[in-house]
């Protein structure tokens, strides 16, 4: 049955696009490798746990909350970390090490606070608010799995995919339809010239950094539903996966990530279905091959080879 892995791959792929897009935005704008990216996903998942277990609300409500919190966290972290980093001889290289340190701190603090146990949320709870509103309006509630082309998929997968598409669309609107977004694109393409023309590069970068982390956090809200459970150590693997997605699309081109995510999602599901014992190898081999054969990614223009 090819339909199942293809559709599941597409749903996961759209979600993977959201997983990677923040990392790419940060790299594209600042040439900074956020090795703590996966840890912000993990933190987003914990916002979801808080909303569900402490407030008893639909985890979907954690999406706007996580976004707001992590935009602010991002702007704060930008202020204390990045200007100093940019003064060093080789910010791109040192950023890898710096953010590795940050990822260690986040993982350690979360382990100290919440332990190492695996946490999850029952799948049907995601979107419970929507079905309640639907019920109030008299529509028949659709709590169960969603049927697409004769195959049934968990509703949570579909909700994650739809939210991801919406978030990526909003990133597009931000980059192409707002003033700050236009300046962001200017900084992405020619940083030195943007500085010379008097653009407040720091403000543009702080915003991009905040949005980048916030996108990771909202992807994290869905992580328990997509991956089954989340622990404080979830971040490291999520970072590598994000890199694969981003590099597949094109490092430095946030919208290319959407394509990278879908390609990765479909490959992932196909290998899971037909070659499952080698599935763990896929992301790494894919990453290396893409970097070597097409370093600019599937959509990229500029080539980065020595």
């Amino acid at each position, binding site marked *: 049955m090819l339909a199942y892995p293809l559709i599941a791959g597409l749903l996961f792929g759209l979600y993977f696009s959201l997983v990677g897009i923040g990392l790419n935005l940060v790299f594209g704008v600042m040439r900074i490798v956020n090795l703590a990216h996966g840890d912000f996903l993990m933190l987003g998942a914990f916002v979801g746990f808080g909303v569900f277990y402490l407030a008893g609300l639909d985890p979907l409500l954690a999406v706007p909350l996580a976004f707001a919190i992590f935009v602010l966290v991002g702007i704060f972290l930008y202020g204390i970390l990045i200007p100093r980093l940019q003064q060093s001889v080789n910010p791109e290289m040192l950023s890898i090490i710096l953010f590795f*340190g940050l990822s260690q701190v986040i993982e350690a603090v979360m382990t100290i606070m919440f332990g190492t146990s695996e946490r999850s949320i029952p799948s049907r709870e995601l979107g419970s608010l929507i079905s309640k509103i639907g019920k109030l309006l008299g529509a028949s509630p659709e709590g169960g799995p969603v049927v697409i082309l004769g195959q049934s998929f968990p509703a949570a997968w579909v909700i994650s995919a739809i939210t991801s598409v919406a978030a990526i669309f909003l990133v597009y609107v931000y980059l192409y339809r707002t003033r700050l977004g236009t300046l962001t694109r200017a900084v992405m393409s020619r940083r030195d010239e943007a500085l010379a023309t008097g653009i407040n590069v720091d403000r543009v970068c702080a915003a991009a950094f905040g949005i980048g982390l916030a996108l990771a956090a909202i992807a994290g809200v869905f992580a328990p539903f997509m991956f089954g459970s989340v622990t404080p150590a979830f971040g490291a693997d999520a970072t590598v996966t994000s890199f694969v997605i981003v590099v597949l699309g094109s490092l430095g081109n946030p919208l290319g990530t959407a394509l990278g995510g879908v390609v990765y999602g479909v490959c992932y599901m196909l290998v899971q279905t037909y070659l499952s014992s080698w599935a763990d190898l896929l992301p790494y081999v894919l990453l290396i091959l893409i970097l070597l054969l097409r370093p600019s990614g599937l959509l990229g223009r500029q080539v980065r080879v*020595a």
Partner: protein
Amino acid sequence: MPSLARHTLFIAVPLLALFAILPGVYNNHLLLFNFVIFLILAQGVNIIYGFTGYLPFGYVGFFGAGAYGFAIMVMHFQSPAPLAVVVAGLVGVALGLLLAPLLRLTGAYFAIANLAAALAVLHFVANPALESITKGPYGVALNGTFNPTMAYNGALIILALTLGIVVFLRNSSFGLALQAVREDAFSASMAGVNVLKMRMIAWLASALVAGFAGGVFAWYVSVFYPDNVFSADFSIFAIVFALFGGVATITGPIVGVVILYGIYNLIGFTTPQYFQLIYGLLIIGLVLFLPAGLVSLATRRGWYVP
């Protein structure tokens, strides 16, 4: 006295003598052995990162491959341990050759690809489908070769070789040429330097010592799992130790290992997450306040640091 002889006589020889004597007066031999291993790995990182600027985020790949090279020689060919260590080094070099195309990538791209490569090797070795060769995820137990004293001496010989390489690089026009390549590859080629060849030599030398180190590690511990010898901690520790002391010097990585691995052993084992927290903060502080390492405190004042 030429500086090459001075550095050998006053840095390399005393360090080796110290670690040759210490097992007689200090009982925790495993700790001493780990110190020697990290001295080798930190200097190996120094060769490739310090002198050529490639950040080997997946450096452990060579180490793990070396450990498995040793294990396979012993398990399948009943090889004596010293021969198996030599093969471990050659396995490191072979992996280095296989990954040589990664040298085409620059900056963060190389670091990420190298990380992915190490993870790919791990998942390859740990694959249950290869159980008959590598024992897959179930780990290796080597009975016939267990001899910690000999393995420790083997590690000292490899440390001597590694120090010899670094002393040579610090005192030769070959080492200067490598640094020239790191600073600007095209300028270096216009100084007559064969950039591709130089990089390759440094890369393989660095792979060789890590492969050897993996081999003696396997010899020393005799029982290990893929996750032990491919643990990302080896890469990260080696990089942070080298960076903390200061790369492209002989003394920097030594100072880094002695101080940081010393601290690690004072606070590390009882409460890992607190250690992780302190470690993360230390890394962040290092990048922000001392990006060129401890030796930069001296070089900034115009002092020469060997």
